[in-house]
C-alpha cells in the first residue's frame, strides 16, 4: 500500500553550526523518523526556539536536513503540485488592493482551481461582507479569516499552516476551527495537514497526532491524540490533564 503513504521522514537530524562559538551549535530532531498516510492531521507544538520553523522549512523542502531524508509521495511543493504553505503572519498572500472576490477569481483560474466555496451558515454572513472589500480596508483578523476561506476553496492535498488563527479573536477562531477547518477535513479525508500553533486546545481539537518539540534535547515527542475532532468531544470540554501532559512534554 505504498500509494497510501504521503510522507516519510527517516533519521531526520538538522544541525545549526555557529562559526563564532561552537557552544551555540544546536542539533535538532535527533534522528526522528515517521511515516504518514494521506489524511493525517498533525499538530506541531513547542516553545519559542524549539525548532518549529526549522521543521516546517524541512517539510516544505526549503532547507535540506543535515542527516536523514524527507520523502513526499509527490512533488507537492512544486508549481501547482497540490501543496500550500501559510507562513507565519497575518495573511501573507493577500494583495491589499484586491477584494476577496478578485482573489477568488484569480485562484479560480489557478492550477489548484476551480474555486469551490467552503462555508457554513455560521460564517457565511461575515465572510460575504469581507469578500467585497479591498484587503487594505480589513483588520488583521479579518484578513486572516479571508485568507483561510480562500484557501479552503482550493484543491490542495497537503497544507502547512503556521499559526493560521493567531490574529483572530477567541470566539471567531473557534468558529473557524469547527466550521471551516474541521468541516473541510471531514469532507476531504485524504488531505494532509501540518499545523503549528501555540494554542494547545486548537491542536487537540483538530489534530490526530501532536508532535511536541521538546526544548530539552531538541527532540520530537509524538503524542497520539484521543480527543481530536472526530472523537465527539467539544472544543470547550477538552480534558485539562491532557493539556497539562502536553505542556510538560514541551519543557
Amino acid at each position, binding site marked *: 500500500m505504498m500509494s497510501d503513504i504521503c510522507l516519510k521522514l527517516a533519521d531526520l537530524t538538522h544541525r545549526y553550526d555557529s562559526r563564532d562559538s561552537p557552544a551555540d551549535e544546536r542539533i535538532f530532531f535527533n534522528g526522528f523518523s515517521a511515516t504518514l498516510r494521506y489524511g493525517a492531521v498533525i499538530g506541531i507544538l513547542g516553545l519559542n526556539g524549539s525548532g518549529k520553523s526549522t521543521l516546517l522549512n524541512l517539510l516544505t523542502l526549503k532547507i535540506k536536513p543535515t542527516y536523514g531524508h524527507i520523502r513526499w509521495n509527490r512533488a507537492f511543493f512544486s*508549481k*501547482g503540485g497540490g501543496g*500550500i504553505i501559510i507562513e507565519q503572519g497575518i495573511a501573507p498572500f493577500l*494583495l491589499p488592493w484586491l477584494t476577496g472576490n478578485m482573489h477568488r477569481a*484569480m485562484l479560480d483560474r489557478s*492550477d*489548484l482551481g476551480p474555486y469551490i466555496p467552503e462555508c457554513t451558515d455560521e460564517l457565511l454572513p461575515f465572510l460575504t461582507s469581507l469578500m467585497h472589500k479591498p484587503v487594505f480596508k480589513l483588520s488583521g483578523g479579518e484578513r486572516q479569516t479571508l485568507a483561510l476561506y480562500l484557501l479552503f476553496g*482550493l484543491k490542495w492535498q497537503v497544507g502547512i499552516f503556521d499559526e493560521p488563527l493567531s490574529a483572530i479573536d477567541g470566539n471567531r477562531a473557534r468558529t473557524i476551527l469547527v466550521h471551516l477547518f474541521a468541516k473541510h477535513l471531514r469532507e476531504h479525508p485524504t488531505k494532509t495537514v501540518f499545523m503549528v500553533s501555540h494554542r494547545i486546545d486548537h491542536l487537540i481539537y483538530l489534530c490526530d497526532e501532536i508532535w511536541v518539540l521538546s526544548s530539552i534535547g531538541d527532540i520530537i515527542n509524538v503524542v497520539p491524540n484521543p480527543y481530536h475532532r472526530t472523537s465527539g468531544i467539544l472544543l470547550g470540554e477538552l480534558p485539562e490533564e491532557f493539556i497539562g501532559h502536553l505542556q510538560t512534554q514541551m519543557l
Partner: protein
Amino acid sequence: MVLRKIVTILFNLPRSPFGRALDIMIGLLVIFVGYSLISWFTVKAKPSYAVFLPSGIDVIFSLKSLALDPDFWSTLASTFFRIMLSLCATILTGLIIGILLGAHGQIFARLRPAWDFLRSIPPSTLFPLIVLFFGIENQAKIITTFYFATLLYSFGVAEAARSAACNFGPFFRLVGVTRPDWYLRVLLPVVLLKSVSTLKLVVSLTVILMIVCEMFLGAVTGVGGAIMAEAEALRYSKLLALIAVAGFIGYGFNLLFQIIEDIARRRSQ
C-alpha cells in the same frame, strides 16, 4: 493668539492624502518664502552684489506679463510636451526592464554593480556624448532625460519586483496562478505601488534635466532656452520669473506624485 489658532487648525487637519499634500505645500511655501527673503536681504545688504538683482515686485510683474504672452504658453507647452514624452517613455521602458530584471534574480544580481556604477555618474556629464550620438535637436534632450530617468526607474522597479517575487512568489507559484495573473494582477500592481517614491525622484530628475538640456544649443523653444535668451539679453526680472516658472513646474509635479504616493502607501498596507 490668532496666529496660534491658525497654526493649531492647520496642524489638526485630517491626515488624508490631500491634508498631507496641504502640509507639504504649506511647508514648502514657508521654506521657499523664508529662504528667498533671507537671500534677498543678504544680497541687498551688500549693494555691490545686487546690481543685477531686480526687486520682487519686478519679478511678479514679469510673471504677470509672461502669463499674458501667448508665446510664453507655447514655450511652456513645448517643455511640458518634452517632459511628458520622456516621462511616458521612461515609465514604459522602466516597467518592462525592471519587471524582467526583478523576475530573474540572478540576472539582476549580475547587473547590479554595473547599474550602481552608471547611477553614480551625474547625468549632465554624459550630455556631450549624447549630443555626439543624437545631435543637438529635440531628440538629444529627450534621450538624455529618458536615459537617466530610465536608469533610475528601472532599478527601482527591479527592486520592487524582486521584493514582490520574494513575498508573493512562493505562494502563488505553489497555487499555480496563470502567467497573465501573476504579471498583471500581482507583480505589476506591487511594482507600481512600491516604486512611486522612485517615480517621484524620476519626475524631479526629468524636469530638472529637461530644463537644463534646453539651455544647451539647439533649443528653439522651451523654458530652459527662454532662460538663456533672457540672460543673454540681460532682462533679469524676466529671467527670475522664468526660473520661478521652472520651479512651479517641478513643484506641481512633485505635489501630484506626493498625493499619488500617499494613496499608494495607504493601499499597499
